[in-house]
C-alpha cells in the first residue's frame, strides 16, 4: 500500500532533514511508528498524504506515485484515499461537532454531502461516544472529546488509508481502547491500512508491526 525508496526531504531554514532508504506497508496492515519527538514521524505522514512534497526518491501510495502528481491531483488523491487524524485535532472553532465531522464534504468537490453521509456521521458519533455533543462547539469540548471528533472526521469518508498522528495521545485509558477499537474496526471493515504515530508503548501489541523511526531513516542537518 505504501512504498518508499530513497526518499529525501528537508524543511528549508530550520536544518531538519528526513532521509528514508526503504519503507513498505502492506494493504490492510496496521503499523505503529514510534520514535523521539522531532524525528520526522509527522513529516512522514504529511509526505505520504501528499500535504508536502518530497525532493528526491520515490513515494508510492495505493500504487500512485505521489511525487509525480500536481498539487490539485495530490489534493484529490488525499480526499479520496486518506483519512488523517491530526496531532492537535485541528477542529474548526466556529463549527459545531456535527459540522466539524462533515466539514471535508463542504470544502471539497470530490465528496458529496448527502443525507446518508449525515446519517453515517451520526452513527459514527454514536459509536465513538460523542453523539450527545453534536451541537456543541469545538471550544466547549474536552481534549479527549476533540480527539474523538477529529477521528470521526477522518473516518467518515471510509478511507483506504488511515493516518493517525498521536490519535490517542489525549485520551484516558478506557477511551484509548475504545478509539483504537474504532480505528481497527474501520480498517477491517474497509480492508484499509492504518499507519499510526504514537508514543504510547502500551498500545504497540495491538498493531501488526512496529517501526522504530530511528532505525530506518537518517536524520541530520540539511
Amino acid at each position: 500500500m505504501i512504498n518508499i525508496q530513497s526518499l529525501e526531504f528537508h524543511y528549508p531554514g530550520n536544518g531538519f532533514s528526513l532521509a528514508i532508504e526503504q519503507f513498505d506497508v502492506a494493504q490492510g496492515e496496521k503499523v505503529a511508528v514510534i520514535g523521539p519527538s522531532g524525528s520526522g514521524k509527522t513529516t512522514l505522514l504529511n509526505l505520504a498524504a501528499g500535504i508536502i512534497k518530497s525532493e528526491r526518491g520515490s513515494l508510492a501510495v495505493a500504487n500512485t506515485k505521489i511525487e509525480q502528481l500536481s498539487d490539485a491531483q495530490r489534493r484529490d488523491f488525499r480526499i479520496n484515499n486518506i483519512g488523517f487524524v491530526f496531532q492537535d485535532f485541528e477542529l474548526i472553532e466556529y463549527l459545531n461537532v456535527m459540522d466539524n465531522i462533515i466539514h471535508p464534504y463542504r470544502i471539497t468537490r470530490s465528496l458529496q454531502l448527502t443525507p446518508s453521509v449525515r446519517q453515517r456521521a451520526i452513527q459514527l458519533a454514536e459509536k465513538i461516544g460523542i453523539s450527545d455533543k453534536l451541537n456543541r462547539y469545538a471550544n466547549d469540548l474536552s481534549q479527549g472529546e476533540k480527539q474523538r471528533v477529529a477521528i470521526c472526521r477522518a473516518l467518515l469518508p471510509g478511507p483506504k488509508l488511515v493516518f493517525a498522528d498521536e490519535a490517542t495521545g489525549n485520551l484516558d485509558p478506557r477511551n484509548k481502547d475504545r478509539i483504537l477499537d474504532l480505528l481497527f474496526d474501520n480498517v477491517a471493515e474497509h480492508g484499509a491500512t492504518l499507519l499510526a504515530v504514537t508514543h504510547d508503548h502500551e498500545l504497540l501489541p495491538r498493531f501488526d508491526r512496529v517501526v522504530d523511526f530511528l532505525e530506518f531513516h537518517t536524520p541530520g542537518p540539511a
Partner: protein
Amino acid sequence: MHALFLAWQYLVFNKIRSLTLVACVTLIAVLPLSLEVLLDESERQLLSRAQSTPLLLGARGSALDLVMNALYFDDEVPELISMLAVDELLAMDLAEPVPLYTRFNARGFPIVGTTLDYFDFRGLKLAQGRQMAVLGEIVLGASVAESLNLKPGDNLLSSPQTVFDLAGIYPLKMKVVGVLERSHTPDDLAVFADVKTTWVIEGLGHGHQDVSQVTDETLIMQRSENGVVASPKLFQYNEITADNIDSFHFHGDAGEYPLTAVIVIPDDTRSSTILRGRYLEEAGMHQVVLPEKVIDGLLQNIFRIKNVLDAVIVLVGSATLLALVLVFALSLRLRQRELHTIFKLGCSRATITYLLAAEILIIGLIAAGLCAALLSVVDGYSSDLVRTLFIN
C-alpha cells in the same frame, strides 16, 4: 452554498467583528446616499415652490430672507413693508397682489396672514370645514392639524412674542374653521388667518368694553367731546366671538399696516417685465425678486457645500475601506491555522477564496439591506428633514 453556510457560521461566531464590519460598510454607503436623497428633496421642494411663485415684493434688503419667509415661512422675518405697497400694485393694474404677513406663530407653527386669493393661487383645497370668513378664524395646514390634533370647531392660541413683556403681544384665541388637504409643501405646516387677524394679534386692532357704556370711572382717563381715553385697566378681549366681534376695530391708517411680503402675480410676461423695471431703482424702499433666481443661488451654495462634504466623505470612506482591508488581512493572518487545516483536509485555494469572498458578500448584502432600510427611513422623513436642515 457550502461556502455561504461556512461564511455565515464564521460571521455568527465572530459577532462583534462582523457587526463592526457591517456598521462600517453601512455608514460608508449610507452617508453620501442620504445626503444625496436630502439634497434632491431640498432641490425639489425649494425649486418647485420658487418656480410656482412668479414674483415677490418686499422691503429692500436680503432677497433670501424675503423669499425664505414668504415661500417657506422661515422664522427669520424680513424688513416690513406696509399695505401701501399693495395699493400701489393695484393702482398699476399690472398684477394681482397677494399680501403676506408671516411674523407670528402658534404652538411652533407659523401663522400666515393673507387673503383668500392665496388659496386659489397655491391651489389649496379644504379637506374639512370651510374657509375663514370673519376675524379670528383660521384654516390649518394638514400637518398642523395632524400634529396638534385639531379639527374645525377647536381653538388655537397664538404664541406670545415675549413672555415677560407685559406690553408685548398677547395671545389671541383663534377658531379653527377648516383643515386643508395635504399638499406636501410648506403650506402643510402653516396656520392660515386673514391678514387682519394677524394685525389683531399684533395689537393694531382690538376689541374691548364699550367705553361709552363703562360705569367704572377708574377705567376712564379722560372724557371730552372728541372722545374717551381709556385706562390700560380696560378689559380687552383675547378671543373674537360673535358677541364681541362688533367691538373689534383698528386704529390708525390701514395703509400703514405691516406686511412681510406681497406675492405678485403679473397679468402676463410684459407686465412682469414692466413691474420688475419699476422696482429696480435702488433708492426705492421696495424690491421685486424672482424667487426661482434667488433659490437657484441658494442651491448653488448648497451644492458647493455638498461638493466639500463629498470630498470629505470620499476621504473618510477611503480610510475606512483601508481599515476594512486591514481588518480582513489581519483576520486572514489569525486564521492561517484554520486555513492550513482545511487545506490539509483537501480544500483548494480556489475554495478558500470562495469562502472569504462569501464572507465579504454576506457582509456586503447585510450592509446593503441596512443601507436600504436607513435610506427608506431618510426618504420617508426627507420632507421634514429638509425643512429642518435646509429651510428652517
